[in-house]
């Protein structure tokens, strides 16, 4: 039920086809993936964007299957693979709880692990448990396969990801950053305490520590495994997306591509299933941003239009969002001071109370279209309004929007 509903919000008709295919042929995913060179991308945040960037890079080398719409459960993957010609390449986003099942069927060449943090705690109870399951999957895969299983491209800055990836026979470490650290303070190896500095981390008890990065990225360039720097400028905003691009470039190079060419192909990507794009909502230009957990919000603060530009925050709590929006209290909304926030969505009251205690000026407008209009009225009417929404609130607004 949960899976179906989650999925229902995510895919188009192709996904329904994927469900039917899986009912008729439970091995459809393995069959469709056979003979392809596949990359799986998983993590709490950045899956869809990284998959989109990687698909853009791989497409320069040949036909590439991808679930670009974000339908990341097995049926969504079946739908994506069925609609592409056999053979070729695949860039596939996978829900973090389904990585084992999907990896077993798809037998990917590369697995990208981005980050792990609190999200949908009513569904996924423990971040640490998930990291342990990933690790088992990778240990199992590297033990069985003659070639040693998939190469893992992993974020060296996230202790949970490093713990999981260390189960693999071969890892390419990427210094992709970690903006939210409160889910990684307990050592996944010994339950000691992880200490962070600006550039490294280690456990004070057992010595588990950040591996040296093979690939790193800064405001200007990506530094590849041989130390060469590749300057690049993305159309997508924020350092988090530069990190996503670095992960994608590392994966592309493992399939035989070249980082510079991969990055060039990623630069023009400006819209990821409606995210980051400017649309019109009720006639008002709105830049649509998705953020569904504290880690995601830490990244949003990075590229939100500066105060006093008003911002709309839309919060729902359906199954795909997580039923419990108490994570709003983990987000430092105090950073929205000196501007008006328009709280909307089915849980706008939770947001209004959070903003009251953050002492941030706000109004509550339950109807999302009216909320965008209100933010437009409150701000500089010549500019587009930033709208930050969690999953189903985002989908709802996108359905009401028209292209700008």
């Amino acid at each position, binding site marked *: 039920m949960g899976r179906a509903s989650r999925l229902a919000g995510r895919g188009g008709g192709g996904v329904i086809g994927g469900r039917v295919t899986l009912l008729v042929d439970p091995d459809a995913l393995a069959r469709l993936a056979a003979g392809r060179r596949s990359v799986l991308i998983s993590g709490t945040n950045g899956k869809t964007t990284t998959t989109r960037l990687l698909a853009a890079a791989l497409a320069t080398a040949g036909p590439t299957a991808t679930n670009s719409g974000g339908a990341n459960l097995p049926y969504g993957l079946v739908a994506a693979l069925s609609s592409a010609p056999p053979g070729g390449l695949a860039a596939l986003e996978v829900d973090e709880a389904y990585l084992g099942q999907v990896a077993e069927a798809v037998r990917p060449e590369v697995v990208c692990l981005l980050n792990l943090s*609190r999200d949908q*705690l*009513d569904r996924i*109870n*423990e*971040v*640490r448990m998930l990291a342990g399951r990933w690790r088992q999957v990778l240990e199992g895969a590297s033990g069985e396969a003659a070639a040693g299983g998939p190469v893992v491209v992993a974020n060296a800055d996230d202790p949970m990801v490093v713990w999981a990836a260390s189960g693999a026979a071969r890892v390419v470490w990427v210094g992709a950053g970690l*903006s939210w*650290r*409160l889910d990684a*303070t*307990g050592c996944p190896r010994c*339950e000691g*305490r*992880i*200490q*962070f500095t600006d550039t490294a*981390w280690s456990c004070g008890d057992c010595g588990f520590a950040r591996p040296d990065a093979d690939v790193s990225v800064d405001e200007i360039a990506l530094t590849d495994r041989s130390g060469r720097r590749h300057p690049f400028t993305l159309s997508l905003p924020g350092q988090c997306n530069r990190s996503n691009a670095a992960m994608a470039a590392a994966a592309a190079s493992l399939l035989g591509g070249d980082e510079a060419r991969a990055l060039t192909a990623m630069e023009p990507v400006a819209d990821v299933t409606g995210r980051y794009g400017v649309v019109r909502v009720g006639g008002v230009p709105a830049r649509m941003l998705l953020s569904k957990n*504290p880690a995601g919000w*830490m990244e949003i603060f990075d590229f939100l239009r500066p105060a006093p530009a008003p911002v709309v925050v839309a919060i729902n709590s359906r199954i795909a969002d997580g*039923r*419990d929006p*108490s*994570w*709003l*209290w*983990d*987000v*430092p909304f*105090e950073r929205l001071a000196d501007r008006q926030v328009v709280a909307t969505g089915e849980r706008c*009251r*939770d947001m*209004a*109370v*959070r903003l*009251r*205690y*953050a*002492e941030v000026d706000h109004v*509550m407008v339950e109807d999302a279209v009216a909320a965008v209009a209100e933010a437009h009225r409150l701000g500089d009417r010549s500019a587009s309004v930033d709208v930050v929404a969690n999953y189903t609130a985002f989908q709802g607004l996108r359905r009401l929007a028209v292209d700008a």
Partner: protein
Amino acid sequence: MPEGAAGAAPWPVSLRRGDSAVRVVVVHPDLLGTYGDGGNGLILARRLQWRGLPVELIQAMSGSPVPGSGDVYCLGGGEDAAQHRAAAELADGNPLGQAVDNGAAVLAVCAGFQVLGHRYPSADGQERDGLGLLDIDTRKGTGRRPVGELVVTPSPGLGLPQLTGYENHGGLTTLGPGARPLGRVDAGIGNGGGDGSEGAVVGRVIGTYMHGPVLARNPALADLILSSVVGKLDPLDDSEADSLRAERLQAVTIPRRNGRWRWTDRLTSRR
């Protein structure tokens, strides 16, 4: 500590401190802060500040001793390993027990609530020693994990309106003779020990399974805790919290009025 650094509080609040400031201590937010429960400390501090009372909000990270001079202590929910570590650190020197003996109030939620009892379970069901500040015992649940909205009628004498929160816990808690329940479950599971109770109260120590955070949805509970420390409080404008409460209470009770599983659900939670 720079914002965003390891263990830094996610809500950068600096509140002025006078000589007689009320000290609100959030205990181990880096371990017991999984479900937004750190908000409880912020809420308590703001409600004093808005009334012109000096307050200091202290985020007591793990790894260093918890200050014993606090007036109110808040503990939140957390994962199994984090709960174990917090319990071990708090057992060392028992700063919470000493503070309670000196008249401090405590609000403990979920994993933090369990830790205050005599015993609580690890993820694999092993028994661990708690701090013994509440006469409760928690064991590992065997059925489905209680996850969902929780509505509670507070115990008489607390003078509180109906309470609303969101529960998500694996342990089941039974009260000993030295603890009374925070309230009786109207919807949801609560303690889950079979008596229909939710939470526990002993003196100024309150334990509950309600996240939300609980004080965001129940400002009267926040003021009950604060008034136990500073005495009578002026009223505040809680219209936004009232609107949230009304919406949450309606979201739970109205579907149940028509739901065919309502009575069986009530019987199991009250048996």
